[in-house]
């Protein structure tokens, strides 16, 4: 019964309007798409809206899908756009462009050097720690956050991330490194308390 899930999706059947094939597409991708939206928006209701809109749009625009990227990348692309649009709608007008940093600027130098690597995994991934992880990505500027989520959380390649966001691989790499370094600093602040209880 579950082997229907692992067979590759037939683009031909999808284009021919097969409802059952579309349902298989949904089964394969609804979890990662929901996750992407949730990590991006940090709100379950918003994530669900993005999830539904993503597949509704996919259904409507299937005929325009040219197959230049994979189906999954195409879905991520729709989802990323939906999430970014929702964020823009929600953002208060006062902070329209509170995202300065540009690609040309020097990389921020690392400032924290405590070695928290060897904390036990149950500590690093405790419920509280996971909440901190989620909290930390919300501090990233949106355009770094989306790159980090696609590449490092969902495991897309640099190339696929570029296709999903319509950015060059160089731009993806730059944003990715900035995102990773920023998160490393935030996590260092949190985890260092766990290795050094006293100052």
């Amino acid at each position, binding site marked *: 019964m579950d082997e229907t899930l692992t067979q590759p999706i037939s683009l031909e059947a999808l284009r021919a309007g097969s409802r059952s094939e579309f349902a298989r597409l949904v089964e394969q991708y*609804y979890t990662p798409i*929901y*996750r992407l939206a949730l990590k991006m928006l940090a709100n379950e209701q918003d994530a669900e809206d993005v999830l539904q809109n993503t597949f*509704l749009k996919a259904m409507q625009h299937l005929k325009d899908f040219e197959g230049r990227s994979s189906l999954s990348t195409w879905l991520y692309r729709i989802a990323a756009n939906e999430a970014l649009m929702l964020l823009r709608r929600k953002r208060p007008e006062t902070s329209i462009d509170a995202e300065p940093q540009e690609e040309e600027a020097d990389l921020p130098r690392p400032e924290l050097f405590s070695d928290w690597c060897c904390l036990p995994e149950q500590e690093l991934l405790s419920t509280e720690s996971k909440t901190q992880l989620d909290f930390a990505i919300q501090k990233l500027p949106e355009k770094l956050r989306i790159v*980090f989520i696609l590449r490092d*959380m969902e495991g897309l390649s640099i190339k696929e991330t570029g296709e999903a966001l319509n950015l060059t691989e160089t731009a993806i790499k*730059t944003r990715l490194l900035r995102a990773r*370094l920023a998160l490393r600093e935030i996590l260092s602040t949190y985890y260092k308390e766990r290795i050094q209880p006293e100052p």
Partner: protein
Amino acid sequence: MPHEHEHDITCQQLLASLGDYVEGEASEQICREIERHIAECENCRVVVDTLNKTIYLYHQSAQSTSVPQGVHGRLMQALKLDYLVTKKG
């Protein structure tokens, strides 16, 4: 910190190559330079290790994030595909 080697990279140069290094895409020469640097520079060694760990932790936590109950059913309804769903947990 002054370095002895002619081709030694600075901490700032290491930072610039870090993306490729972490992706496993750095050239053999860059890898050697980075490894030589972090053997002697504790701060950069920690940055490399905790950076890798950061990526690992986020990947792990994403993979363990599940979809709340009801989301799937409402999605199928919105897509008018619910009649196709046999039954899902």
